[in-house]
């Protein structure tokens, strides 16, 4: 028995060792998949990111050449009426708008899923905050209200090491609602040339989604569309709200003009009747991503799905306006922007929030492309973050799911990104997969929504509850050979398909969600 006991003891020891080893292996895998690392701490936010999100010296896609210039500011929202008229003849744009309005009324009356009155008004309500925000005014004011300007400094401005300054700002941004925050150096090339005044001859339904949605649908992110376009739409609607009463435009004596955006050696930002002036001393940009509600996004292309964008925009306006007040309180200047004023995507790329994708939009490792971007310019010195690489560009080369899912065939099927643009809505001079924003926006008119199918179909757009998703992303970051299998699995498991709009109210709304 002595020998048996010894043998049993040895076996128990080996078993225990095996369990410890297995636990250690799982723990290591878990740390790699969800844990933290040196690279992550350098590349992102104060909250460290997973080890498979590697910091790199430059963005993995979006390299520029000599053709890259400041974007005009005129995205698809501004260009579409003239392009439509040019392609389909005089009156075609107005006819299309009238047809869309008529169709929407009919769909509302017949309670088409996703187009009922509650579905449409959900989006209307979600736009509320964003509607009160216009570039340089209201929530997005570039300056302190006169009553808040101290005649004498109340206290010395806040100073600390650049890393600590960055962490302070990131902590505040997170408190206000940002989920991803990074610091990028100011790059004047990313700032638009103008803030266009948008005139819409027709009463439009409230903005539907737009973020990257609109981004992709409109101009290109890196160029000047992405969030910008969305923003533009939002601002346009804000304009409409102020000028229209139930769709009837009121005439003003002086038509609004486009305003130039210039950099100048001034102490504080200035907004005049003719231009927006950014102080040259503003050398830092806080890039922020606000996740969209993926339950709503899964209902695109419907007005119900549009509420995901609307809510993202309103959250963005709240976050940047709050953060700007915070920074000013520390003794520095701050310019809050949503899609206006500058391209959000290149700043987000430089700040390490994600990578540029086949959508021609930012895809984050955490939320995929289902985010709205916004930013704050400031003269508060902060340590900058680095761009990241999590294998997305290689994945996009293989996947192409967004391009196949796009109802308007607006996205590129090319294997490799290029410098070849698709139209005047693209800002040339950077390497990417350019999209056909005209086709995209035309589908918006046809569908009566701001679409967003590309955002919902991306394999990176997933909930964060299943462990397997992080494991797949981690594997894709180091083993591009598996990308094709992951794409097949994504389809097989039914991801990216439209969810039943009616079910949102009964099963998937915040009040009825489980967990």
């Amino acid at each position: 028995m002595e020998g048996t006991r010894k043998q049993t003891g040895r076996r128990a020891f080996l078993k225990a060792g095996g369990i410890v080893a297995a636990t250690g292996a799982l723990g290591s895998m878990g740390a790699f998949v969800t844990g933290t690392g040196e690279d992550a701490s350098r590349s992102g936010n104060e909250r460290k990111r997973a080890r498979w999100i590697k910091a790199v010296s430059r963005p993995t896609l979006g390299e520029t050449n000599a053709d890259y210039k400041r974007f005009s500011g005129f995205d698809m929202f501004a260009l579409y009426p003239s392009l439509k008229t040019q392609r389909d003849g005089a009156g075609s744009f107005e006819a299309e708008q009238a047809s869309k309005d008529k169709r929407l009324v009919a769909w509302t009356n017949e309670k088409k899923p996703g187009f009922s009155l509650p579905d449409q008004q959900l989006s209307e309500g979600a736009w509320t905050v964003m509607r009160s925000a216009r570039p340089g005014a209201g929530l997005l004011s570039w300056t302190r209200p006169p009553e808040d300007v101290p005649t004498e400094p109340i206290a010395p401005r806040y100073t600390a090491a650049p890393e600590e300054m960055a962490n302070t700002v990131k902590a505040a941004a997170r408190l206000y609602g940002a989920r991803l925050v990074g610091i990028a150096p100011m790059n004047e090339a990313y700032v638009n040339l103008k803030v266009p005044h948008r005139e819409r001859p027709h009463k439009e339904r409230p903005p539907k989604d737009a973020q990257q949605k609109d981004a992709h649908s409109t101009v290109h992110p890196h160029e000047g569309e992405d969030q910008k376009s969305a923003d533009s739409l939002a601002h346009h609607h804000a304009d409409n709200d102020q000028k229209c009463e139930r769709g009837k435009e009121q005439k003003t004596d002086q038509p609004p003009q486009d305003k130039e955006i210039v950099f100048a050696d001034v102490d504080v930002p200035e907004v005049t009747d003719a231009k927006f002036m950014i102080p040259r001393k503003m050398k830092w940009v806080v890039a922020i991503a606000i996740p969209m509600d993926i339950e709503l996004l899964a209902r695109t292309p419907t007005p119900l799905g549009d509420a995901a964008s609307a809510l993202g925009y309103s959250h963005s306006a709240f976050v940047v306006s709050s953060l700007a007040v915070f920074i000013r309180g520390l003794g520095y200047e701050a310019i809050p922007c949503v899609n206006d004023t500058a391209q959000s995507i290149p700043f987000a790329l430089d700040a390490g929030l994600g990578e540029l994708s086949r959508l021609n939009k930012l895809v984050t490792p955490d939320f995929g492309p289902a985010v709205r971007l916004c930013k704050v310019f400031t003269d508060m010195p902060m340590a900058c973050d680095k761009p990241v690489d999590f294998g997305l560009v290689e994945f996009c080369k293989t996947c192409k799911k967004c391009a196949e899912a796009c109802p308007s065939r607006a996205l590129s099927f090319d294997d490799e990104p290029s410098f070849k643009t698709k139209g005047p809505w693209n800002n040339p001079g950077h390497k990417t997969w350019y999209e056909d924003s005209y086709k995209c926006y035309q589908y918006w008119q046809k569908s009566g929504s701001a679409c967003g199918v590309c955002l919902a179909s991306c394999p990176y757009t997933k909930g964060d509850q299943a462990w397997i998703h992080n494991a797949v992303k981690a594997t894709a970051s180091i083993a591009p050979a598996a990308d094709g299998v992951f794409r097949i699995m994504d389809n097989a498991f039914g991801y990216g398909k439209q969810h039943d709009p009616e079910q949102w109210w009964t099963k998937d709304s915040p009040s009825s969600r489980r967990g």
Partner: protein
Amino acid sequence: MTNDADTFTITMRKRPWWFWAFAELWLLSEVVLVQTALASARESEYRAATISWIAAAVLAVAGAFGWLRRKDSHKPNEPNKSV
């Protein structure tokens, strides 16, 4: 177990290393599949949840079948090969 009138002799066969590795892999797969099923259901990804539940069930049945088959594989007149 054999009986030579005065003593019992118990023969315990060690399971090979790969058995434990396989068992741990099986257990890990079960845990991941069940977690995926539950999480997918919470996220309203019902097809993913269904597939995960089915895969977990198939794996559980396969594991049980393998275990029982191995347990019953000894012959009555030979030393028991299973513990």
